């Protein structure tokens, strides 16, 4: 006997086990939500089974899957910069972007295969074409995109088969935006509250984050005279990413809470600072004139900040989702409120 009671008003006098996550609200947390944002959902009492989570925790390894979310965005948006650089006569920018896309995509494929419970069976991903599974569609997308990205980079580096290389560059750029944004659908199409509830805005967050990462790579590595488009892409991407992320958190209700607590909060806060700072720095260095050594240093710094910021955002989103699956509060409270709202609407109808 534990001396605890499960009552209609929740668990009373419970002593949760070593691993139990109680999700009890604290005053400190309420204050942290501040910064002018109102708590969208009043703190609600809820019942649970000894504080155990309703959902099973995602088994994806953070380094593999959050890393893939990041590298996929970097690759997809880099392919756009590569095609743009090629068409507008910026060979330095095109080469960096092509190498970045091919490298990031190769690492992505390695991470995805490594994350499988049975890596030897990775080819089963292409066993069926299944529109209801974002992972199936994504596998087919990568099966088309990865060879194009690698061919574009190989043709650029070796200088041979230029026509094939140009065609591959254009093909990779056509698929690139899909590669960068489908990953949002991949994680939204789950029962994990903090991923699923953001399905409207998350693709835009990931599009912006991919753009800042690709721009960051170009700023850090491409010759200074070619970086004009990357600076503008960095600014636009940062605005899209930060704007839609704020909008997402405002619309999500209770499921936004994991984004504002603990480790994920720290990651997302640094992502905000690095992305905004990197974009501002890139714009400033562009105006200061691109030849001077100091401007070169600033540009490299801006690029590094943008790359790190995009990675921090992906890891923050990943860990916030895992945290929301581990706490029954984020599963039970919104569903209970939905049921009560439906019951109220029905009683008003009659």
């Amino acid at each position, binding site marked *: *006997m534990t001396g*605890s009671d*499960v*009552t209609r008003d929740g668990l009373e006098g419970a*002593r*949760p086990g070593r691993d139990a996550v109680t999700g009890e609200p604290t005053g400190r947390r309420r204050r942290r939500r501040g910064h002018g944002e109102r708590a969208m959902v009043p703190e609600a009492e*809820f*019942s*649970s*089974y000894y504080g*155990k989570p*309703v*959902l*099973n925790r*995602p088994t994806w390894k953070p380094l593999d899957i959050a890393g893939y979310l990041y590298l996929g965005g970097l690759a997809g948006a880099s392919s756009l*910069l590569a095609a*743009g650089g090629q068409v507008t006569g910026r060979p330095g920018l095109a080469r960096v972007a092509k190498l970045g896309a091919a490298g990031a995509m190769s690492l992505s494929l390695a991470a995805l295969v490594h994350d*499988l*419970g*049975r*890596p030897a*069976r990775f080819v*089963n*991903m292409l*066993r*069926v074409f299944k529109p*209801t*599974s*974002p*992972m*199936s569609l*994504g*596998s087919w997308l990568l099966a088309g995109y990865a060879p194009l990205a690698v061919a574009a980079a190989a043709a650029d580096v070796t200088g041979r088969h230029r026509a094939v290389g140009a065609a591959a560059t254009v093909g990779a750029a056509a698929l690139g*935006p*899909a590669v*960068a*944004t489908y990953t*949002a*659908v991949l994680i*939204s*199409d789950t*029962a994990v509250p903090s991923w*699923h509830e953001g*399905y*409207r*805005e998350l*693709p*835009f967050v990931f599009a*912006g984050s991919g*753009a800042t990462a690709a721009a960051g790579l170009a700023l850090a590595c491409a010759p200074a005279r070619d970086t004009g*488009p990357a600076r503008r*892409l960095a600014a636009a*991407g940062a605005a*899209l990413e930060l704007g839609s992320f704020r909008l997402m958190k405002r619309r999500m209700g209770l499921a936004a809470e994991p984004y504002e607590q603990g480790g994920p909060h720290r990651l997302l806060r640094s992502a905000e600072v690095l992305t905004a700072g990197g974009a501002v720095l890139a714009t400033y260095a562009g105006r200061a004139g691109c030849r001077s050594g100091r401007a070169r240093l600033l540009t490299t710094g801006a690029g590094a900040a943008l790359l790190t910021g995009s990675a921090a955002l992906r890891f923050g989103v990943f860990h916030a989702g895992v945290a929301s*699956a581990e706490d*029954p509060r984020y599963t*039970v409270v919104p*569903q*209970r409120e939905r*049921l009560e709202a439906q019951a109220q609407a029905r009683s008003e109808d009659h």
Partner: protein
Amino acid sequence: MTDDTAAQAARTSVDPARGNLLFGSQPDVAGAAGYTDARPRMGFFTDTSVCIGCKACEVACKEWNAIPEDGLELTGMSYDNTQGLGADTWRHVAFIEQRKPLGGQEPGIGHEDVDVFAAAADLGTSPSSPGPGATVPEPGSVPAGAPTGAISPVAPDGRTELRWLMSSDVCKHCTHAACLDVCPTGSLFRTEFGTVVVQEDICNGCGYCVPACPYGVIDQRPDDGRAWKCTLCYDRLGTGMEPACAKACPTDSIQFGPVDELRERAATRVERLRAAGVTDARLYGEDPQDGVGGDGAFFLLLDQPEVYGLPPDPVVTTRDLPAMWRHAAAAAASLAAMAVVSFVRRAR
């Protein structure tokens, strides 16, 4: 506005032969999956009002399906040391202790010929029963209001009745199963009985089904890498046998049969319980209009679902998949547009 309403109508209109594909009611679940010779949909009705918490279902399931051991630990929170469903637990008996009477109970044993008052009056007079002082509390030693000098119905600590809720949880074999929808390899499939089963020779352990399940049922076996869950004993069903857990259940708390028949039986049972004064009795997962289109394995519960660790209003995540793709397409288009604009504007 007109586009929206047209789209709404297209989404909510149901092909009478095939029903809804992503969510909503689906009368012929195996037929919608492509079977032309589908059998009646089979499932479980778990009536928790007669569960005695013996865990025979857990043991029978482990034995029949040769599920490996997954840790022998004592939780210290209740008699439940299994804790929840997972890769190596396909039946889980929940224990909940509540300070609440269970409602009228008939022990089912005839004592009509025994006069308890006469027997009490004999206390102390016959050698087989001790004197009144042995069982009757002294005046002043019991809470106020309790009868003294006679047999007391109130325990010395003032507690009255207590109830235990016990419930055997299992995979729900949803009408719209998120795990099946998101599986990229086709390893998860719909059987001719309308149940959902993992093909272990196909599964490559991508783990997508684990966060997709709104009930937290399916999980990945760490050393093996593949995903596992209840098969509703597909191997036994094929030869006309009932699943191992239902076979082992000594009180028929776990009932196996065609889902249509079980739904009728459940409706009758819940009415009977309510009429008998168990007003808490309710069905869970039997409604074909709910967020997963109704469960193939549904329950009669005596409290809110979340008390048993079940989600109160689960929704299949793929219900929103068309909207997700629309938003992702718009985001991809805006990414491409941003890139084009970055190049079109000439540098100063």
